[in-house]
């Protein structure tokens, strides 16, 4: 039997879905976290029958007449896939809007059960809803639920009700006058009647203590957090705190313990192998597999703390306010107010971020956003940031924070450039977004989110990263004739000869050696690979607890082993973060952009952006620290001027095109 979960955005559909299926889909306290339908089986302890119940979580919608593409998914699903029962999740704090959608659902002749969700919030506000009366008036069962709570949440009775009503007929409380559906005037009239009907119901069942159009504490908080001047600094401080806690204070303490275990394991395996094992095999197992994967896994605690904090931020409702602060800037550079959502999602992973752009209707804005979203540092880039912040900058919180703001800056500049290249800047857009209520973030949900990401991280380290490390290890052990390379002839290995041409181009950026170039290359498979490959090519197993390092590599300083100055390290970090993302995300870009010209333009733009930024970081940084330009300044400067010149040429051409269009229209 099939069960559809429908309701307004941010009414808690996915939270309820997770609670009844035991899945761990992404939730967040802002509207529109779900952009696709998701399926799952109802847990055995809730479903007492032998029949399997498939629950389908649908994106939120305000009405059955679709306005956005996600609403489309919902109404198409409900109309075409014939669910046996519909659960309509109604936000108890806002029934006067939610029931409009309910009246439409009741007309589909599919049994509806209403889950009156967030009933705990309502109690807190001392609002009461007469459940019995509501159920009578609507002609369908109403169950109070609190899907965020573990017990007494009403979910058991909800599922029981669902099984009970299955196969029954649904009556329509709202007497549907036969109107000509193709006549927009009469449809409009019908919808107004529908709202009048809802108003009458609300007036009889709801008892509100405080009228909702009065100023509340929330509004006071909003006035500070989303303030025109204070909003951005507050956001910066919040991000800095998140990075400081995860990378400077709490994270490293836990990471130390983990890293010691990994080192211990390395030692045990080394002892087991003994002297008789061929050095190639022992290096493959110790440096390639254990060392490389261990170096990546060592960052797990830092990442977990970071995701825990980000989950708390998302859950409390702050992210919605960040969107409000950013809208102003994005609007000015020709992006849609909606562009902020893919970017917030992109801080987790660029793939769902790029996919989320499909909710933007204007084609140019959609494509621009899809092209720029991967600049946001995603979860896979965080360990890379943590590595460089830790090794070169004492784990300073400002490194990560500034990378986020640099990303936002790049997006704004990038959008300005793209608008000019495409020659369409006279776009007017509207922005409306529901402000979710602040709430105390749930520790439990944050922990669940943290562990699900940790699991994904470990799977990635044990699969893709492990395989890449093995390949890298083999490629650096052999030369093209498949002979083991001699000591001191590392430059003849397969890896070195492949990476060297790239390294040559990277000289003006301050890191033109094949080891670093190959790490940047494997980063395109998955960004965590940058760490894994660095660990393998420099035989470092431990980037975090550097005192332990002497045991294995004999060097006391990771920075010295890599031979990078802090400025070059920052430039390398910038290069890895702001060149094109991993192949999987590039694939997502390709399918969303749906146009070869845009796709290759996007890749080229990301390449150029990474290169130019790294060039400026290194050369200007070196100029400041040593009072002289770094190596390769002149060839680099020529290349960078060619790139910038070409972009200006494209912008100029776009402007001309825009002028012509205006002239043509006039």
């Amino acid at each position, binding site marked *: 039997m099939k069960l559809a979960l429908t309701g307004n955005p941010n009414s808690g559909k996915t939270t309820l879905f997770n609670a009844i299926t035991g899945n761990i*889909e*992404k939730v967040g306290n802002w509207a529109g976290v779900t*952009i*696709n*339908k*998701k399926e799952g089986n109802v847990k055995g302890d809730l479903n007492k029958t032998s029949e399997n119940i498939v629950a389908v979580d649908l994106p939120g919608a305000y009405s059955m007449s*679709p306005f*956005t*593409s996600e609403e*489309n*998914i919902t109404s*198409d699903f409900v109309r075409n896939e014939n669910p046996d029962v519909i659960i309509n999740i109604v936000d108890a704090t806002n029934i006067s809007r939610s029931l409009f959608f309910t009246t439409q659902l009741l007309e589909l002749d599919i049994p509806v059960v209403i889950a009156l969700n967030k009933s705990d919030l309502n109690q807190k506000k001392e609002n009461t809803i007469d459940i019995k009366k509501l159920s009578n008036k609507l002609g369908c069962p109403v169950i109070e639920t609190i899907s965020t709570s573990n017990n007494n949440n009403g979910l058991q009775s909800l599922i029981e009700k669902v099984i009970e009503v299955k196969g029954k007929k649904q009556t329509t409380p709202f007497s549907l006058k036969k109107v000509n559906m193709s006549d927009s005037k009469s449809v409009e009239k019908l919808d107004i009647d529908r709202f009048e009907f809802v108003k009458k119901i609300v007036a009889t069942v709801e008892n509100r203590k405080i009228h909702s159009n009065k100023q509340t504490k929330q509004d006071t908080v909003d006035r500070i957090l989303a303030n025109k001047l204070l909003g951005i600094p507050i956001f910066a401080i919040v991000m800095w705190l998140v990075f400081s806690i995860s990378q400077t204070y709490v994270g490293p303490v836990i990471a130390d313990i983990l890293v010691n275990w990994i080192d211990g394991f390395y030692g045990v395996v080394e002892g087991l*192998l*003994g002297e*008789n*094992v*061929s050095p190639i*095999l*022992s290096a*493959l*197992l110790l440096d390639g*597999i254990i060392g490389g994967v261990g170096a990546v896994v060592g960052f797990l605690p830092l990442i977990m703390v970071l995701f825990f904090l980000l989950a708390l931020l998302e859950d409390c409702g702050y992210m919605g306010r960040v969107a409000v602060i950013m809208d102003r800037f994005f609007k000015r550079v020709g992006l849609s107010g909606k562009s902020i959502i893919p970017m917030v999602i992109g801080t*987790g*992973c660029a*793939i*769902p971020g790029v*996919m989320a752009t*499909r909710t933007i209707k204007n084609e140019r804005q959609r494509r621009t956003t899809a092209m720029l979203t991967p600049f946001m540092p995603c*979860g*896979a880039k965080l360990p890379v940031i943590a590595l460089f912040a830790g090794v070169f900058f004492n784990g300073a919180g400002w490194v990560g924070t500034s990378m986020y703001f640099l990303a936002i800056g790049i997006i704004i500049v990038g959008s300005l450039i793209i608008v000019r290249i495409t020659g369409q800047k006279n776009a007017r857009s509207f922005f409306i977004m529901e402000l979710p209520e602040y709430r105390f973030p749930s520790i439990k949900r944050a922990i669940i989110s943290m562990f*699900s*990401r940790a699991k*994904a*991280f*470990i*799977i*990635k*380290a*044990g*699969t*893709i990263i*492990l*395989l890449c490390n*093995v390949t890298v290890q083999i490629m650096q052990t052999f030369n093209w004739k498949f002979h083991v390379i001699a000591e001191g002839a590392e430059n003849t290995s397969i890896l070195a000869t492949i990476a060297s041409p790239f390294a040559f181009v990277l000289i003006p950026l301050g890191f033109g050696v094949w080891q670093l170039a190959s790490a940047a290359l494997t980063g395109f498979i*998955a960004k965590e690979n940058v760490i894994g490959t660095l660990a393998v090519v420099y035989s470092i197993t431990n980037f975090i607890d550097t005192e332990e390092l002497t045991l294995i590599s004999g060097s006391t300083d990771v920075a010295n082993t890599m031979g990078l100055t802090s400025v070059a390290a920052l430039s390398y970090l910038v290069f890895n973060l702001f060149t094109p993302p*991993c192949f*999987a*995300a590039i*694939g*997502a870009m390709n*399918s969303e952009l749906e146009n070869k010209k845009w796709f290759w333009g996007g890749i080229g733009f990301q390449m150029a952006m990474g290169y130019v930024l790294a060039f400026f970081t290194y050369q200007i940084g070196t100029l400041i620290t040593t009072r002289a330009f770094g190596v390769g300044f002149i060839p680099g400067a020529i290349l960078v001027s060619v790139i910038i010149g070409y972009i200006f040429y494209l912008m100029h051409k776009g402007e001309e095109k825009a002028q012509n269009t205006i002239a043509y229209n006039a």
Partner: protein
Amino acid sequence: MTNIIVCIVILAIIILALAKIYFEKKKGAKCVGCPYSQSSDGSRCRYNKRM
């Protein structure tokens, strides 16, 4: 002798990793080990994208 054992161990690890990737891909993950990437399967609603 030890060489053969170590060789087998390494091969076993590689095969396990490959098998895991294969099964994850089969389950529909866009990117193995990326959080939430499997839930964002975009194929389903492509047809109404232009709306």
